[in-house]
């Protein structure tokens, strides 16, 4: 016996750590017929760990203060090493977590994994879901953008329907509106809850290991040959699943990081203006739809909470003794009906309540929401209890070793539903070609420099770029000397030896501040309008660069007859409402490029939008480069795991 074994024996005799691992992870007998739908439990666990890790590292840089929060997130994105990666990993991770957990739950629903003796296992899972929802909601508040703020306001106001609601809501806020105390406590709790989730996950696993996994046939294991040890069979299968999952997650992080986000959340929170379309994150949409479909406030809130709470009673609402839907000819149809219903509810939640679907016989979104809400509850309260009584199930196989099902993976293409909010009366935005779009796109350096020139000579008279530092302009191809010279043209405030506020030339580490000292000064100088900071403008508007381009190129001197233009306003069909305070900024002749060219308005718009896109996403090129490496890595990893899995599983007899 070598010395390592001795040490292990010594420890294990006192603290049975190694035998625990051996028993619960390596040898743990698992049904041999689990299909790929069983991968999602381990994926959820891995996602939880990655979320906690990335969250801890983000928390090291985040400032939970209403004055700092938004800027600190941008600071992470622009200055912290790999900060953009950590943030996009975390933000898209929330989406991935919900996808995985929802699939995991639907799998449980299909195969009856909640039935005796696994009721508590299921209920612990529902608690995890509730904690996840609370965590995700509070996390979404932290960047302190417009959606954060108004999401927090709307969700906390839900509690006002309960007795003493007013006091409950004020207690949640720590004030009379969502404000700094709210942000502070949300941050504290957002940090705490994941660890509560870990605790409940441990209970979930203990409950799981008591009776072992359910399986696609839903029958108990009777003979030893029905089981195989967890390792290496399911470890390798989980690794294969992880590889595919990594591909999907990495795609979003590196190539489409704001796909699930809302442009409005790149606008700093403003307690006085609610965004035109306020929608929750996609994973709350079905519940949001239920809330809105019911015209009574109290009833709506109760139904929304009830839609989750009803899951606790699922083990008793389903009266059938047969677990797997495979042997329940009617239940199977109801199950798929329920899945579709959930998607339609999500679709309803993504559209405004007064939306009319002209293609579907002028069905109103409200009616659709009510129908699907009714079906949602009918599934649990009518279908499940009654099916158990009236349904005749198919004969069950005697043991797992009789048939083994082979199922393949279904690709997740169902998530585009939430992205259908369209602007109502503004014309649709034409698509331009951009050097930086697509998976291989990079910023054209010449366009960037020209764009910056236009920013300096035109935009900067009203707009700042406060998240960009002069030194960042190195990415445009300027050298240190040129950057110093550019910075020196601007003034920053400083305090001199005697305590007086003086102005001195900016240095490369200063940010490109706007011309106004504060919002009031800006409004006074601009006919009451507030020229927004442009650092994030292409990310903060639906349509992104195309919208900004359309806006810059579509001023019309003579508005259509039916449009009344207010004093000092200008007609622009792409601006919401059609009237904009900004004077047409680009006219031919306002700038002359270094090469002597006098660009056309369209050319100028193109250049300045390219520059602004860079200002909003300076990490884009690095992000895509890293993305390719990561995708190639996961492709190789997945391939290797696939072949390894095939070889290892070749030993299992059907």
């Amino acid at each position, binding site marked *: 016996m070598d010395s390592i074994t001795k040490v292990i024996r010594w420890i294990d005799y006192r603290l049975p750590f190694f035998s625990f691992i051996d028993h619960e992870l390596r*040898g743990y*007998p698992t049904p*041999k017929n689990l299909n790929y739908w069983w991968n999602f439990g381990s994926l959820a666990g891995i996602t939880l760990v990655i979320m906690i*890790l*990335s969250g801890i*590292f983000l928390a*090291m*840089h985040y400032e939970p203060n209403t004055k700092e929060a938004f800027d600190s997130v941008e*600071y992470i994105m*622009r*200055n*912290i*090493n*790999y*900060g953009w*990666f*950590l943030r996009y990993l975390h933000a898209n991770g929330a989406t991935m977590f919900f996808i995985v957990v929802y699939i995991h739950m639907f799998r449980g629903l299909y195969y009856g994994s909640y039935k005796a003796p696994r009721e508590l296992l299921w209920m612990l899972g529902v608690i995890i879901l509730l904690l996840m929802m609370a965590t995700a909601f509070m996390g979404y508040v932290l960047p302190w953008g417009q959606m954060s703020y108004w999401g927090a306001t709307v969700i906390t106001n839900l509690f006002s329907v309960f007795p003493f609601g007013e006091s409950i809501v004020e207690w949640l806020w720590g004030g009379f509106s969502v404000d700094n105390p709210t942000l502070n406590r949300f941050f504290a709790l957002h940090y705490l809850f994941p660890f509560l989730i870990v605790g409940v996950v441990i209970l979930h696993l203990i409950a799981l290991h008591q009776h072992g996994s359910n399986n696609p046939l839903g029958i108990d294991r009777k*003979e*030893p*040959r*029905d*089981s*195989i*040890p967890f390792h290496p069979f399911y470890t390798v299968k989980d*690794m294969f699943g992880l590889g595919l999952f990594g591909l999907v997650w990495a795609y979003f992080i590196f190539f489409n990081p704001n796909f699930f986000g809302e442009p409005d959340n790149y606008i700093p929170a403003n307690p006085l203006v609610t965004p035109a379309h306020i929608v929750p994150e996609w994973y709350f949409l079905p519940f949001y739809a239920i809330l809105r479909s019911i015209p009574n406030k109290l009833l709506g809130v109760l139904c929304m909470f009830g839609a989750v709470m009803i899951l606790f009673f699922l083990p008793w609402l389903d009266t059938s003794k047969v677990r797997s839907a495979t042997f329940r000819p009617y239940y199977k149809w109801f199950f798929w009906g329920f899945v579709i219903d959930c998607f339609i509810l999500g679709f309803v939640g993504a559209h405004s309540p007064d939306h009319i679907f002209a293609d579907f016989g002028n069905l109103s979104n409200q009616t659709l929401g009510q129908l699907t809400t009714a079906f949602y509850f009918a599934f649990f309260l009518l279908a499940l209890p009654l099916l158990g009584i009236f349904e005749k199930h198919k004969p069950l196989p005697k043991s797992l*070793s009789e048939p083994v099902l082979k199922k393949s993976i279904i690709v997740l293409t169902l998530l585009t539903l939430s992205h259908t909010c369209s602007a109502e009366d503004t014309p649709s935005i034409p698509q331009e070609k951009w050097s930086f779009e697509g998976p291989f796109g990079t910023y054209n350096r010449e366009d960037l420099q020209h764009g910056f020139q236009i920013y300096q000579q035109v935009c900067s008279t009203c707009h700042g770029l406060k998240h960009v*530092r002069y*030194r960042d302009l190195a990415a445009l191809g300027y050298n*240190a*000397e040129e950057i*110093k010279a550019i910075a020196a043209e601007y003034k920053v405030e400083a305090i001199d030896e005697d305590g007086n506020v003086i102005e001195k030339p900016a240095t*490369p*580490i200063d940010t490109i501040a706007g011309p106004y000292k504060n919002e009031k000064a800006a409004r006074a100088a601009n006919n009451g309008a507030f020229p927004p900071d442009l650092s994030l403008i292409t990310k903060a508007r639906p349509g992104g660069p195309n919208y900004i381009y359309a806006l810059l190129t579509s001023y019309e001197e003579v508005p259509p007859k039916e449009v009344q233009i207010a004093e000092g306003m200008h007609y622009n069909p792409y601006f919401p409402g059609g009237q904009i305070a900004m004077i047409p900024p680009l006219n031919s002749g306002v700038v002359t490029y270094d090469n002597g060219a006098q660009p056309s308005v369209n050319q100028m718009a193109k250049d300045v939008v390219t520059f602004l896109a860079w200002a909003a996403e300076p990490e884009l090129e690095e992000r895509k480069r890293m993305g390719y490496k990561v995708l190639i*890595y996961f492709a*190789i*990893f997945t391939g*290797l*795991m696939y*072949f*390894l899995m095939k*070889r*290892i599983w*070749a*030993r*299992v*007899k059907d």
Partner: protein
Amino acid sequence: MTEGTLKPQSHKPTRRDFLLLTASAVGAVGTAYFTWPFIDSMNPAADILAQSTIDVDLTPIPEGQAITVVWRGKPIFVRKRTAEEIRAAEQTPLSELIDPEADQARVKKGHDQWLIVVGICTHLGCIPTGNKPTQNRGKYGGWSCPCHGSLYDTSGRVRHGPAPLNLSVPPYAFLSETHIRIGTDEVTHG
């Protein structure tokens, strides 16, 4: 218990072993790479690194005194030494020193008057006094540390007490007779 379901392991282990090894290696390398962004995120951020040099104007410093400037969050003493102080520093025999180092090695050639050191006691990090002649400079005329009594001479070298090392000299360069840049050894122009 579980063996019944498995075929006897075939004795052609090479291919699977190779596959297993490759897969594990790829997994391990990936995990290692994955940890790097997390670790690197704790390093000084891009804008903090960019502030890693500062320029100091020497003209307002009177002879026999020092000023404190902040470089990378640390106090830097910039001292204009008197002729006497320079002589004292140069003539101290190395054998009397705790951390032997010649004065010439601690100043820039031709700029003997200027002593630039990190103002952090090498014992446990307190800030020594002695920038102004009115402050306690200790018996060696440089600085004295209020915490545990370490004494430094006019070259910033430790002469007494628990501190083991001389006050360290940061990288710096003369931009002109009256300006220095702390944080870099070379002068790039600008």
